[in-house]
């Protein structure tokens, strides 16, 4: 069964717009739910967050701090990452 070319184009366009939307989003992962005040403060510090749709994720395993993801970039400010860095560096020395 062949798909009509017009249908193919519509699907492509839809997927492209979905992709664009994805790119405009930003995900903030924290250990608890952040309120409006905290999020607006974050937007001041990170200009890249301005104008993006924020999606919040709660992940207790990061212990403290937050992880901000947008497009293909990540800013990892979690305590879990700092502890694993420390572990690495101590391993390097010994």
């Amino acid at each position: 069964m062949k798909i009509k070319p017009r249908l193919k184009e519509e699907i492509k366009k839809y997927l492209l717009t979905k992709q664009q939307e994805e790119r405009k989003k930003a995900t903030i992962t924290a250990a608890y739910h952040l309120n409006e005040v905290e999020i607006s403060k974050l937007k001041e510090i990170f200009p890249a967050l301005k104008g993006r749709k924020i999606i919040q994720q709660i992940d207790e395993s990061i212990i403290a701090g937050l992880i901000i993801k947008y497009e293909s970039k990540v800013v990892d400010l979690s305590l879990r990452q700092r502890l694993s860095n420390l572990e690495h560096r101590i391993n390097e020395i010994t």
Partner: protein
Amino acid sequence: MRSLDQYIKEIERELSTQKISVRESEIGTLVEVKDGVAILTGLQNAFFGEIVEFENGESGFIIDLSEDSVGVVVLGDYLTLKAGMLAKASGRILSLPVGEKLIGRVVDPLSKPLDGLPKPSLNTNNPIEKIAPGVIYRKSVNVPLQTGIKTIDAMIPIGRGQRELIIGDRVTGKTTIAIDTIINQKNEGVICIYCAIGQKNANIASVIETLKKNKALDYTIVVAAAASDSVALQYLAPYSATAIGEYFLEKGKDVLVIYDDLTKHAWAYRQISLVLRRPAGREAYPGDIFYLHSRLLERACRIDEKYGGGSLTALPIIETLEGDIAGYIPTNVISITDGQLFLETDLFNADIRPAINVGTSVSRVGGNAQTKAMKQVASQLKLDLAQYRSLAAFSQFESELDEQTKKLLNRGAKVTQVLKQKKHTPYSLAEQVCIIWTATSGYLDELELSDVENFEGKLLDALRTRKKDLLKKLNKQKTLEKTDEKELEKLIKSL
């Protein structure tokens, strides 16, 4: 084992220099893993050759950039990677730590020690891929690199900063020539780097043993990517060895790098390219197989004094099958290098070792890289050998030839005998000049062929014991004067 106090002090020191920086890093997700290559999505702003770190501690470097995905060659065990893993782009280009402490060590292409000794402390990081020095930085080659092998130093001389290819079938003595050259650099101030690509671990071990026995490891670095190592390490090994050499080159030193061998390097690159589904060309090699070797060998150069001086000499080794030097990879590398040494199985089996075919071997630097003394004796040597080769077919009819031909054949046979050399016994410049002068001046013509080896040994002993000053003088001044020739004549007549 260091004491607990020392450990704690070092940890304190590390922690006090900690800085918290807010850095954004590129993230990618692993989609596929194939035979040493991982395909990731994401990583939209990563660059070619960037180091990528996986979640579980493995690392790799980027070798393929497509519209939606990135191809990463995994440096390490790719079997531990799972689909869905995250990978972070580190922002650093593929580089390795280099420094003085590498001398005497056996390391892998990422400077990790393989000889069981502790990690060397290295402060500088050199990029593995580097653009070769431009035309303005170079100087022409005119200082010889003494290999200690009579045939090479007399007729196919190698200079510092040259690239000379050693090409031949399996088991013809290619690695032996390379090792003998390293052994002969003992007091020459040349740093040697032996790069083993895809070799058997046993062979690498025996090479290291030989170097240790001849005390050559004091100025040599061994970079090893054995056949059991990952394809990525085999691909990087020659570039890493050159990067280590460039560290010393920038300090104005002379460096010798030996790539053993580039055929296996081409195979490793072919495997990576085929896994990345790049279009296969002749013999399934990718289209840029020439660039693979040309960018490596162009980094061998001689730098002008204005820019620091120093030189990097490259001796690549290629293994041919059934003497087929017209194959794809051999012709590529022959066209890149400044000359080649052909080793033939027939000569090897006829007990002419080193099995160098003097007729077809060439050095495009030639006489510029020879000392005056050697030039004086080598011209007659070349003539004798050329005449011998042209009459070689008639040597079967020994009894039916005229006097002149018989003389030429006799002289040729004696000279060929004199050029034979045992492995791992390098000759100094003075010794070579003396022995070749003896042969070309006709003092061996009356001896039986079987006595020539003996006579050579006796002459060498006599020179080393009774004529030490003559040897020293020749080694220093590098010219052969009439008085020296008379002294030699007296010595020969006394034996």
